């Protein structure tokens, strides 16, 4: 398939749902993608299986605190310049680009980078959602090294990285993002076609477009959106989808700490006959609790949507007084392995609990 103008709206909408609060608002990246496709034509999407084992691929996207992207707007040339800086750094050209995370604006940045170069984007991503840290990417979990990599900031400064471990890489690139105003574009995790096939969460780009279409065509109350969403997720790599809460946001506070948006939101049920739901945020919605009871936890997806229209809401746009619904969706099988949970279990985020799969929470 090709990504054309007509796909961008659904892709952006679907990707905000999969972003679980993080990933940055795709609105501006979408405007940039529209311009890129207008200028360079539709972008080829290829399945991982269509890639030769020895092809050379790099993942590209933005790293930082989503709140920052509300003000520090990306430039049209950021994605292409990042890719060019990477190729210059490694001294070779890439055959295709991949996505860090299908969640939010990072679903579109690889498309923009590919458009200018006539490259293909891979149908898939490194998370199946959005997650805050590099070592949480499926590429990293499967053993792909993050470096050599480059980061490109809003003023055109380029930094290159060569680190000993993905955790150290995350610390370094995060501190660079902070120093550069909270948001940078990075090209990282260069890999062969073989490595990509073994580590990517497949099909998420086309799935995100389908999800956006479902949200658009059924636009309406979250309670009525549940059935079409369940039909879509049950038949996908995700599985279970639940509506876990409806109510009004009575408190929300996040701060930019260490290059992440960190904080909490509290939602009170409409009829007030239930305990309020507390959602912990680190860029993404990571943990949902009613009082002490965990109702959903990372790596499963927690998604907050507008109650009346089911439009997913990014954490940086969540505000006091909004009427919302909270969905939870099971994560892809990849993230349920012991190896993956070492990188993404609730404990990795400082919560004192182990992962319990959504379908096991009664």
């Amino acid at each position, binding site marked *: 398939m090709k990504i054309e103008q007509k796909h961008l709206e659904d892709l952006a909408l679907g990707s905000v749902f999969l972003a679980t609060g993080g990933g940055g608002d795709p609105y501006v990246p979408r405007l940039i993608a529209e311009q890129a496709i207008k200028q360079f034509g539709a972008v080829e999407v290829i399945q991982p299986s269509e890639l030769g084992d020895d092809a050379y691929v790099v993942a590209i996207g933005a790293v930082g605190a989503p709140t920052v992207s509300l003000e520090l*707007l990306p430039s049209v*040339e950021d994605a292409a310049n990042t890719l060019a800086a990477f190729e210059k750094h490694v001294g070779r050209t890439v055959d295709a680009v991949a996505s860090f995370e299908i969640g939010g604006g990072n679903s579109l940045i690889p498309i923009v980078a590919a458009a200018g170069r006539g490259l293909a984007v891979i149908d898939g991503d490194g998370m199946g959602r959005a997650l805050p840290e590099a070592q949480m990417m499926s590429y990293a979990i499967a053993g792909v090294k993050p470096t050599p990599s480059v980061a490109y900031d809003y003023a055109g400064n380029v930094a290159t990285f060569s680190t000993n471990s993905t955790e150290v890489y995350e610390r370094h690139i995060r501190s660079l993002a902070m120093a550069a105003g909270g948001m940078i574009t990075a090209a990282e995790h260069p890999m062969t076609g073989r490595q990509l096939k073994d580590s990517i969460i497949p099909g998420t780009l086309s799935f995100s477009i389908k999800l956006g279409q479902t949200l658009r065509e059924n636009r309406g109350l979250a309670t009525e959106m549940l059935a079409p969403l369940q039909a879509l997720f049950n038949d996908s790599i995700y599985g279970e989808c639940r509506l876990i809460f409806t109510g009004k946001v009575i408190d929300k506070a996040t*701060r930019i700490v260490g290059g992440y948006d960190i904080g909490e939101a509290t939602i009170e049920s409409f009829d007030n006959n239930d305990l309020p739901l507390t959602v912990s945020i680190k860029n993404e919605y990571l943990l949902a609790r009613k009082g002490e009871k965990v109702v959903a936890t990372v790596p499963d997806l927690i998604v907050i949507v507008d109650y009346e229209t089911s439009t997913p809401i990014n954490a940086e746009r969540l505000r006091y007084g909004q009427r919302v619904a909270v969905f939870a969706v099971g994560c892809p099988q990849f993230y349920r392995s012991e190896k993956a949970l070492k990188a993404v279990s609730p404990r990795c985020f400082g919560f004192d609990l182990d992962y319990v799969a959504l379908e096991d929470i009664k």
Partner: protein
Amino acid sequence: MRIGIDVGGTHTDAVIMQGDNVLASTKALTSADVISGITNALDVILNDSGISQNEIETVMIGTTQFTNAIIERRELAQVAAVRIGLPSGNGMPPMLDWPQDLKDALDSEYYMLHGGYLYDGWSLADIDQQEISNMINSMLKSGVKNIAIASAFSPINSAPEEQVANEIRKAIPDAKITLSHSFGRLGLMERENAAILNTTLLPFADKVVSSFLGALKKRDLHCPVYISQNDGTLMSADFVRSYPALTFASGPTNSLRGAYKLTGLKDAIVVDIGGTTSDIGVLQNGFPRESNVIIKVGGVRTNFRMPDILAIGLGGGSIVSDDGTAIGPHSVGHKLVTEALVFGGNTLTTSDILVASGGANIGDKTKVAHISPQTIRQAKKTLHSMLDNNIDMMKPGGKSMPVILVGGGAILVTEGLEAASDIHRPEHAGVANAIGAAIAQIGGEAEQMVSYRTLPREEAIKQVTKDAMQRAIDAGAAADTLRTVDIEETPVPYMDESSTCIRVKVIGELAALPTNTSERIQESTL
């Protein structure tokens, strides 16, 4: 005694209220000069009620003049949009995603300058004096006087906006300037859009507010005058000269609040049928349900908090297809009185269908005698199913709800509505907007920079909320009706790790108006 006036595109409505009672009401046509429409309406209600001018304590005006100007692309002044934030956002100029016809109507120009701040207080880029001089020279050449300025992170640090504004004022002393940080909150594109829309309305706002005040003076009303804003609270009339965009959603807000006042129904669907559109909104606990998503005004994304309204192209002037299967969105609008068949015109409108079916007696019904019963039946069916389908979209959940019909076009609904548990057509429904304006509420806002190190967050929010409440009470709100409608926190990391700017807005019912309310309201909205 209060007077409520609603100045719409087609009609100017006015009411005199004593507490919750409507003593007199009228509906007049909005005049081209706005003034005579208001004075005519005032004459009627003052005569009908026998109330003398000096018994009137306040006049509250709701107006859709500014929203209509944006939607209809008229009365818009030439604008220059200045964005301070390069090198970020390069190639993403202001108004990039605006409808082309609106951009053309604004005859807009834009400038992108280096400067602004980062979230942590670092300079994003140095201001370039040469860039500013070039821009000012270009402005002098084009003669643009209305300027909107938006800078990255201006809600945290507005200095660059102020600095560039000062430079422009030095060169163009009569410039009218809107700074984006006065439209609050993070989200540069939406904040900038709000500032640009506001700026293009400034000359028109001067004209409209002067007309309002002139009309009242002409009729010897010298009491305080307020204009209602998006959330149903009041602004002093003079404040609107600088911030006309704050009135954008006051129309639907007033009609919803008016519908609540007239029926006492706290939870209901309100359908306000005018000449061109039907606005469908939802009352929740007596207040308009707000939209959670980014609101577009005239096709432009903004950051205003507004009622959740679904507008459909169905009104008293909507054009009906010959077979009755299609209605709207085109309407003859205020030309109804010349273009509709019953008034001797050549266009089949919904009003003609109503007359032909015997549902109303306006104009000359012999002029619609030739319309086939089949067309009449079909057109009525089309009209009712349009409303049904759209009410269904706005209804919270599958349960049916009471529907309140207001507005001049409410008479078009002659049958039941499947989506409604029952239909209410309150007395004075035609002037619900004016009633909504007359019962407008008092807002109070407070803002404070706090450090959570010295003051725990919950305490800090309590404190700022208390200040906001005090301001609302000082401005005339009844203390026991106050509720918090917004809490906004903007961390300001460059002051100290835990510095935060907290802004709280509360709203309450009007209790009594102390004499100095006017200044107070001015303060509480600034």
